[in-house]
């Protein structure tokens, strides 16, 4: 092929009227025919459609073409389509070049069709100049480790892990806390069906714990990750529990004798737990943990444990390394606690609580045994005001809508009214009530019928003042029409914003994925690839990608599992050969390339006794920065070689001369 003289075919696309409405396609075809080495040129209404692709295949066969140029849209969408088309006709897929005359010409020069046509000619001329120098390339095949890592054991991660395990893949489920379960395990009921949350999540947690293909690595953090799709190496640090997993039967006798009580973070510090304990009864894995920050080392637990000998005060942090082919990130969300917002008096007034605190109050297994009581006097409130959008939809705090607060407030109002009937007055201060998924609007109607008062107010000018004597709260707001609203309540529940996990940034750095301005992970494409990241082999599930409620977290968890399986199910993974190539004769091993690479893909290594740059093909994303930075010009990018780029420049500057 190298020696063969180029026989180039040019296919100009109308793209309906997108291109043909501005650029004179016929003139462009005639122009292409005049260029050297072009043996065939043709126009099509839609080149990407089946008939258009057939034209290309036909052209290759009938005119014995060995290079193909398609003048159409951006390569982002259809370059893979046409590479496939030419390879179907027996041509190496990399002997194809795309000329973008839509984004670069017809779309941006709509009012000047004549000039647009001239520019399109330049673009096509450049593409042809490059096409002459194209070389066939071979795709790179890498082996795939068919195991997965799921980071985060909330409901999204649980579903990812279970689905992958059911497909037959080994799954490591990494959880930073002592137990999997996530936020869902903290909830009392779920909307709109009022199912008991832990009753429906618990069995799934148990399934995870028992599944032969799942290994839970709990109470552990991700330290580092390297490698690429199909071949990730992950380092994990397990925190010491001071209890031997295998020996602990979960009987809880140790907890009974332990004298020390400390705030239970899992219970949002509303209750306490023992220095040796589990965060909640349904914990999976059911292994006790000693909190050494609080333990006084009286060794009563050691005595209670007796012959089981599960307690080991000498446990040290342990670092393990695992190999996986795909990673699913499902680290969930955190709460914004409005301590610093003086309008709501959170942390200052005893009877102002957050929605999650309310959830723990009304939960039978919670710190009050399911009694909704005021912190100030331990009495059941007779009136409760729910305030929506605290921190969310606030341009000064979090501009976005947290998504699920409207629905959980409806749930809370229904639960309160059904529990206390006419003994309680419920007010919901809202600005827009959002109930836009299956069964949600019906639930809103149920809440309204239940007797809760819905008061629509502006987002601004809301405040709470405490009556120092009664500890009641006077809520001030303003209706949409500007009328003042004043409600005295015995308890206020804030629908505080849900926010991205604090150390998401750190995780993003380790995994080389992106986060947005709000700290949520960035998907590959927001509409059609919401579960993939820009890094092949790393997928997203649940609220860490964008806030979502339980059914959608579950769905995305399963979706991420299916996508991970597209990697894990293959024995090898094909990588496009658009990766940096080092000319070892020229490379001096200076290391400039290593310092500029954003993907850790180039490293200086000892090769045959010489310091040389080495490219890990699986990691290289073909950005070309190393090639541009290399002072010796030792690194080339296939499809963007120096010769090819210069040829393109010559082609476009020819006319200027």
């Amino acid at each position, binding site marked *: 092929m190298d020696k063969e003289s180029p026989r180039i075919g040019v296919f100009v696309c109308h793209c309906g009227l997108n291109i043909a409405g501005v650029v004179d396609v016929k003139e462009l075809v005639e122009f292409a025919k005049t260029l050297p080495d072009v043996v065939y040129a043709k126009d099509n209404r839609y080149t990407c459609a089946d008939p258009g692709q057939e034209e290309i295949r036909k052209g290759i066969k009938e005119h014995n073409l060995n290079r193909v140029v398609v003048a159409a849209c951006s390569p982002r969408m259809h370059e893979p389509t046409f590479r496939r088309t030419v390879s179907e006709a027996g041509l190496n897929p990399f002997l194809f070049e795309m000329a973008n005359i839509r984004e670069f010409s017809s779309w941006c020069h709509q009012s000047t069709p004549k000039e647009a046509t001239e520019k399109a000619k330049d673009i096509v001329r450049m593409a042809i100049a490059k096409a002459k120098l194209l070389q066939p390339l071979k795709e790179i095949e890498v082996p795939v480790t068919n195991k997965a890592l799921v980071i985060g054991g909330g409901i999204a991660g649980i579903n990812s892990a279970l689905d992958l395990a059911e497909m037959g893949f080994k799954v490591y489920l990494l959880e930073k806390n002592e137990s999997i379960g996530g936020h869902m395990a903290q909830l009392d009921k779920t909307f709109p069906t009022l199912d008991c949350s832990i009753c429906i999540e618990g069995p799934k947690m148990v399934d995870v714990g028992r599944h032969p293909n799942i290994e839970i690595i709990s109470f552990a953090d991700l330290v580092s990750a390297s490698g690429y799709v199909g071949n990730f190496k992950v380092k994990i640090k397990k925190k010491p529990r001071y209890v031997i997993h295998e020996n602990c039967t979960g009987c809880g006798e140790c907890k009974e004798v332990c004298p020390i009580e400390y705030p239970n973070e899992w219970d949002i510090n509303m209750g306490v737990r023992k220095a040796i304990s589990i965060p909640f009864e349904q914990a999976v894995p059911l292994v006790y943990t000693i909190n050494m920050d609080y333990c006084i080392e*009286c060794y009563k637990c050691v005595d209670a444990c007796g012959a089981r000998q599960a307690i080991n005060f000498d446990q040290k942090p342990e670092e393990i390394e695992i190999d996986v082919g795909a990673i699913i990130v499902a680290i969930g969300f955190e709460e914004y606690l409005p301590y610093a917002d003086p309008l709501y008096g959170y942390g200052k007034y005893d009877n102002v609580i957050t929605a999650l605190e309310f959830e723990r109050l009304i939960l039978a297994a919670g710190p009050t045994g399911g009694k909704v009581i005021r912190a100030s006097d331990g009495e059941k409130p007779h009136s409760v005001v729910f305030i929506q959008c605290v921190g969310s939809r606030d341009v000064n705090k979090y501009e976005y809508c947290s998504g699920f607060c409207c629905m959980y407030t409806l749930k809370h109002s229904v639960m309160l009214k059904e529990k206390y009937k006419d003994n309680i007055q419920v007010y919901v201060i809202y600005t827009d009530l959002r109930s836009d998924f299956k069964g949600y609007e019906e639930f809103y109607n149920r809440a309204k019928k239940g007797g809760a008062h819905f008061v629509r107010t502006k987002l601004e000018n809301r405040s709470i003042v405490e009556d120092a004597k009664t500890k009641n709260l006077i809520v001030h707001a303003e209706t949409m029409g500007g009328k003042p609203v004043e409600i005295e309540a015995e308890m206020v529940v804030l629908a505080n914003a849900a926010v991205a996990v604090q150390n998401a940034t750190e995780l993003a750095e380790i995994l080389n994925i992106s986060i947005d301005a709000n700290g949520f992970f960035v998907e590959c494409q927001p509409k059609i690839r919401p579960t993939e990241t820009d890094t092949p082999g790393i997928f997203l599930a649940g609220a860490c990608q964008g806030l979502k409620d339980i059914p959608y977290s579950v769905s995305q968890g399963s979706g991420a599992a299916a996508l991970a399986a597209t990697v894990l199910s293959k024995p090898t993974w094909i990588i496009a050969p658009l990766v940096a190539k080092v000319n070892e004769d020229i490379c001096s091993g200076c290391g400039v390339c290593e310092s500029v690479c954003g993907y850790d893909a180039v490293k200086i290594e000892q090769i045959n006794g010489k310091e040389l740059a080495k490219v890990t093909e699986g990691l290289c994303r073909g950005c070309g920065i190393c090639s541009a930075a290399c002072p010796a010009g030792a690194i080339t990018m296939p499809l963007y070689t120096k010769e090819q780029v210069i040829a393109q420049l010559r082609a476009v500057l020819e006319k200027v001369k």
Partner: protein
Amino acid sequence: MPMKTQKITTDNQLIIERRHHAKTYKLTIDQASCVGCELCSLICPREAIKVTKKPKIEGEKAERPTIDVDEAKCHYCGMCVAICPYGAVHVAVDGENISLVVEKESFPKLIREISVDTTKCPTDCKECEEVCPLNLIKIESNSIKAQVTVEILKERCPCCGLCDVKCPEGAIQVRRIFTGKLRIDQEKCPSECRDCLDACPITGALFLDEKDKIRVNELFCTYCGVCKIVCPEEGALELSRSTIRHTPIRSGAWNKALEKLASTLEVTKELRGKGKKRAMEAVKKRLETRRKQIG
């Protein structure tokens, strides 16, 4: 309600509090009872208690050190409650006084062995009430019935034994809680300085001899260590505790505390004692079964 911690200082109390929505932990130090010794701060597992010497004002008597508790660190375990010989510290959970570590047998109680034989008391004698340096004794006598009642606030008594020694009839018997040694290096002890003497809560435990030198009367010393804290001269005062009378215990936390209060040697001794006791019990049991077999 989110968890809240706070500290309240009044003239006679230092209170720290940790409030959960449905549970409240409270630690109170009674400033009148607290002598500013080092015992609680020595054993606090969270190092939450700090004893600070008050700055000396020229020409005035040395004041007792002040005690401060870090509300962010304290986890209300109640070790300080159990160790305070002056009964100055209280922990309450939901209003109820409790020492969690004592309750769960993770920490011993101090044994205050005080016995009074009131039959020996003359109705007109108030000697013990008068000598008690902490005003813990109340005497009521009924001369008609020839009856005397002696009420002692035991939980606040450090068992200095002054009443025992001073009782003319030998009616009170007090066993010491702490034993140890307190030595003053007369070379280092600055003359004119009376700081330890001023701060010592027990009258007569420290005294001035005829040469105006400060001397220790170990008969009364409770080994609480206030003197050591206020002493301006490093090494002038040397304090070591040896035994502490406490309820029987098997706890790592106590061993640790004992090591800090006394010495590693004392821990070893105590542990060996326990070992001996257990060995003796085992022998006794064996002998009994043997006897039964023979019998």
